[in-house]
């Protein structure tokens, strides 16, 4: 796909993902930062609201979307492992604390307590990795628990309905579980890196260096705006997501939105890739250094 990248672009499509608490995305659109950045190049900016990581990588491969502006590391690794042309441009966020395991059973406090319990959450995501890593701290594997694959809202509903012991939750859902007085078993802190990245195709990167440069400056502009007008930014986010301000303020603390790729990030990518290989989600080992531009 994307065979037309050589020609000059007149349209640039970004994925638009607001959940769980993607402040830069919301602020960018609200302020029209990309739009004004690319205006003088004669390029219009469009958004594609693709929420699942698999859909995002699919859309990138098909050429309908040029920039995955907030895609999970796991999705990037999966698509790269399946021979897709995808590269990480820079970071979007890291938020290990936003990924949690909640239960109604107060007595569950250690990995050992999870043995034989029914646990649900989306497979192949940060949450899945969180569960595996948590179990690994007690030398257990996913086979020691009864793991079922479900999306986050569904896992939350199942927890509420009492048909689950533990739900793997993130973002607003996790916040709400906390409000409901559910018991937090563990969050991602120290267990996973929970990286969200910005990704493009290699082909696009090579064909449009000037767009890439502009994009990076736009990202800096967004970051600057947020740090200078934090209160206003959070208010905008609260309105967009229809959440109350307290929730947004609390959750915002879990996120690190710096865009720079650090060594820790690369290591985090590698550990995620290893986890996916070990749990059979990808068939071959992947060297994540191929995912980054030099």
């Amino acid at each position, binding site marked *: *796909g994307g065979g037309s990248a050589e020609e000059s672009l007149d349209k640039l499509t970004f994925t638009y993902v607001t*959940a769980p608490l993607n402040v830069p995305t919301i602020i960018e659109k609200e302020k029209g930062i990309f739009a004004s950045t690319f205006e003088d190049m004669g390029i219009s900016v469009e958004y594609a609201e693709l929420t699942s990581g698999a*859909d995002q990588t699919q859309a990138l491969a098909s050429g309908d979307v040029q920039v995955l502006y907030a895609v999970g590391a796991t999705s990037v690794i999966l698509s790269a492992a399946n021979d897709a042309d995808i590269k990480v441009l820079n970071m979007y966020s890291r938020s290990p604390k936003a990924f949690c395991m909640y239960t109604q059973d107060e007595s569950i406090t250690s990995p050992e307590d999870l043995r034989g319990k029914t646990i649900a959450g989306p497979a192949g995501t940060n949450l899945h990795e969180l569960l595996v890593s948590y179990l690994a701290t007690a030398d257990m594997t996913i086979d020691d628990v009864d793991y079922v694959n479900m999306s986050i*809202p569904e896992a939350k509903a199942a927890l*509420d309905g009492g048909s689950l012991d533990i739900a793997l939750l993130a973002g607003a859902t996790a916040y709400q579980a906390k409000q409901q007085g559910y018991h937090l078993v563990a969050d991602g802190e120290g267990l996973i890196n929970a990286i969200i990245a910005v990704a493009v195709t290699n082909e696009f990167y090579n064909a449009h260096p000037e767009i890439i440069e502009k994009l990076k400056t736009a990202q800096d502009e967004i970051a600057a705006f947020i740090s200078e007008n934090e209160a206003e930014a959070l208010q905008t986010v609260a309105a967009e997501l229809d959440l109350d301000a307290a929730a947004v303020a609390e959750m915002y603390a879990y996120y690190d939105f710096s865009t720079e790729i650090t060594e820790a990030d690369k290591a985090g990518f590698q550990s995620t890739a290893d986890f996916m290989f070990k749990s059979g989600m990808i068939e071959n080992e992947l060297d994540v250094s191929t995912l980054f531009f030099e």
Partner: protein
Amino acid sequence: MKKTLSTLAPFLGIILVVALWFLVCRLGIFSTYVLPPPEKVFHSFLKMLKSGEIFQDVIISLVRILKGFAIAFLLAFLLGMFRSLVPSSEKYYNCIVQFFRNVPPLSLIPLLILWCGIGETTKTVIIVLASFFPMYLNIVKGFTGCDQKLLEVGDAFGYTRFEKFKHIILPYASADILVGMRIGMGYSWRAIIGAEMIAASSGIGHMILFAQEMSRTDKVIVGIFVVGIVGLVTDKLFGILLRKLFKGNGENGWN
């Protein structure tokens, strides 16, 4: 008294469900997160009404659905007609039609994104896939089940194949076609979540999905109600329209 009951009857079911819901909430069996009480849902509904977003969502979804439905109907009708006019053609495409009849549209999403992109086309295709088959099967049943005796009248008066189709088969099949359209219309609405899963930024399906992600059960319930009621209304309007069109044709399957 009896008359009041009779006018209320259609709403009785709904009233019962709401009453039960109210009771369950009052008894506090579930937390309000799990099952928001009616008043909270109503409040959210009012808020959405005031902001007007709900209208916009409904209209956008409605347009999508009508588009998908219209395409599906045309396709089903033409294919059914073709099959009726050239019966031998059927075996060439029947197998593939039957094949896709059983394939879950959700499983096609990745492929659809690939072929049709993430724009309106994919959403339309999902709706078409959802509503095509009941229409096609009912139309084919209507066309092939035509009374042989009436067809012979056409033969006797030197009607061509197409004339027989137009003047005998088509009116004869109208009840079947209408039932098919009705089922198809329902399935169009049902497909709205699947369709707006893909790169939608508005529409009632997107609204429900987003509320689900944000754990806003109250909004999800509002969305369900709105879809149900708007669907009901389109169905009724459609029924009235068609009854006008087929006036004098007696029962038309839209009761």
